[in-house]
């Protein structure tokens, strides 16, 4: 059940996308997300689809693996689709009491669903092809210019990489605790909302205790190795751009320009 969350899970295969510089991938994901918010019409969505399909093909991660991440946003999807579907004014197609479906609503709901799905899949492509460490390295270096205005970039990226590093550990821990309590007859699925909330106590107490213990252990281990922040710290694998990265940037720029153009000239 908990293992279905694909966001933030690295998928180890070798591909062009896996080898790309994390900064390029971050920028590309950002471009894709911006383009989704610019998109308004079939042409633009067709271009976004092409972009996504290309990225998925290049990543060599099985498509079914990315779709699994969608399960987690199912309810969000359902709510936003029904809001758009029923509460948009315009030319009425069907009406039931105060709920009415309009041509504009149908269009809005369809594109909204597409946008959400693309957002999740798009960011999954990045996290599936980039290890958490590469990701934070990319962020640290890519946002390094912010240090000039006193943003603690290193500290933030260190916090992020620790948090990301802990996700799989805590997921596994949760799994073990759930099993240990299920072996004692605990039931996490049935019952009403209050019973369900109550049944979480035997899960959350050991989980919190273990998380705090791990946090203090880690702090101790970092201090034992003389960690004192980012100043003067060198990298084992410094990032540098290659030809494929430059090509990718060129491609992103063209794509973004095309999407902006589609928006300005209102292509269908």
């Amino acid at each position, binding site marked *: 059940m908990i293992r279905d969350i694909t966001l933030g899970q690295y998928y180890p295969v070798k591909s062009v996308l896996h080898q790309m510089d994390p900064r390029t991938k971050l920028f590309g994901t950002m471009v894709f997300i911006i383009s989704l918010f610019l998109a308004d019409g079939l042409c633009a969505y067709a271009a976004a689809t092409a972009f996504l399909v290309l990225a998925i093909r290049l990543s060599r991660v099985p498509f079914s693996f990315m779709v699994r991440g969608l399960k987690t946003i199912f309810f969000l999807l359902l709510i936003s689709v029904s809001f758009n579907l029923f509460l948009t004014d315009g030319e009425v197609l069907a009406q039931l009491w105060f709920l009415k479906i309009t041509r504009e609503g149908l269009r809005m709901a369809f594109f909204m669903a597409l946008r959400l799905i693309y957002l999740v899949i798009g960011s999954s492509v990045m996290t599936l092809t980039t290890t958490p460490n590469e990701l934070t390295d990319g962020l640290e270096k890519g946002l390094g210019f912010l240090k000039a205005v006193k943003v603690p970039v290193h500290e933030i990226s260190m916090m992020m990489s620790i948090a990301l590093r802990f996700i799989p550990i805590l997921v596994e821990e949760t799994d073990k605790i759930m099993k240990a309590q299920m072996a004692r007859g605990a039931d996490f699925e049935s019952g009403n909302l209050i019973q369900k909330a109550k049944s979480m106590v035997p899960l959350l107490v*050991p989980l919190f205790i273990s998380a705090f213990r791990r946090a203090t252990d880690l702090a101790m281990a970092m201090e034992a190795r003389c960690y004192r922040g980012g100043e003067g710290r060198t990298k084992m694998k410094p990032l540098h751009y290659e030809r494929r990265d430059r090509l990718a940037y060129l491609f992103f720029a063209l794509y973004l320009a095309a999407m902006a153009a589609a928006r300005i000239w209102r292509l269908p």
Partner: protein
Amino acid sequence: MSIRAEHLTHIYGQGTAFEQYALKDVNFEIPDGQFVGLIGHTGSGKSTLIQHLNGLLKPTSGTIYYNGEDIHGEGFSLKRLRGKVGLVFQYPEHQLFETDVFADVCFGPRNLGFTEKEVWERAKEALELVGMDRKYWEQSPFELSGGQKRRVAIAGVLAMGPEVLILDEPTAGLDPRGRDEILDKIRDLHDRKGMTILLVSHSMEDIARYADRLMVMNHGEKVFDGTPREVFEHYRELEAMGLAAPQVTYLTHALKEHGVPIDEELTTVEEARDAIVRLLKPEQAGSTGRQA
């Protein structure tokens, strides 16, 4: 009355790059009242195996029968099964959560739907069985020592009244005294209560001392199954798997190679001591030429 596994296979992450065989066609039957040791190095599939026995994991293929019934069959209650096949995990920290020891032990029987009075009686009995002193009953389980936590965890499972008790490395991280105390309590449960025990362990010495039967897992397959003596005969193969027979086995084989007429099938330190003493005593009077 038994647990039987037929062609048990489990694959983690089937259909993804993470696909991994955890169990490959494992077959066995554990009759009532047996004390079984399960051994294998990390990643050999032993933890996966025991989680199948009380239905926490569902096999990819194959069947598990409890008293002749398929545990994933229709109408079979997994909750009732978990009351009958008690599983104690390696780390007590994964299950202790209540404000005091007694309340924590009450958790299991309460989930099984017993009346409050029965729950208390079972909890009391279980805590006495594992030898927890009454003065600890009101304490927070988090203030206890490692060995005591483990006892409370075992009591938490015993309170459900299991017929089969499965323990996953109950002695990991304990000092020698704590280890002996826990293992003696487990043997007590077997001898006095007639419980079927499945003990997962890294220590050949412990298994040799307590178990009637030993199963060895390697790369998801059951490679040996028999009395500890029979299994330890394969000590060279065990070594190749990164395991080792008890030190006594090495000693007796070394002695034999030097021409000492000692029984090779000894498994515990006590047996070896007695055998060596028996060999030495008559010789002290007789031969003087041999130097061993």
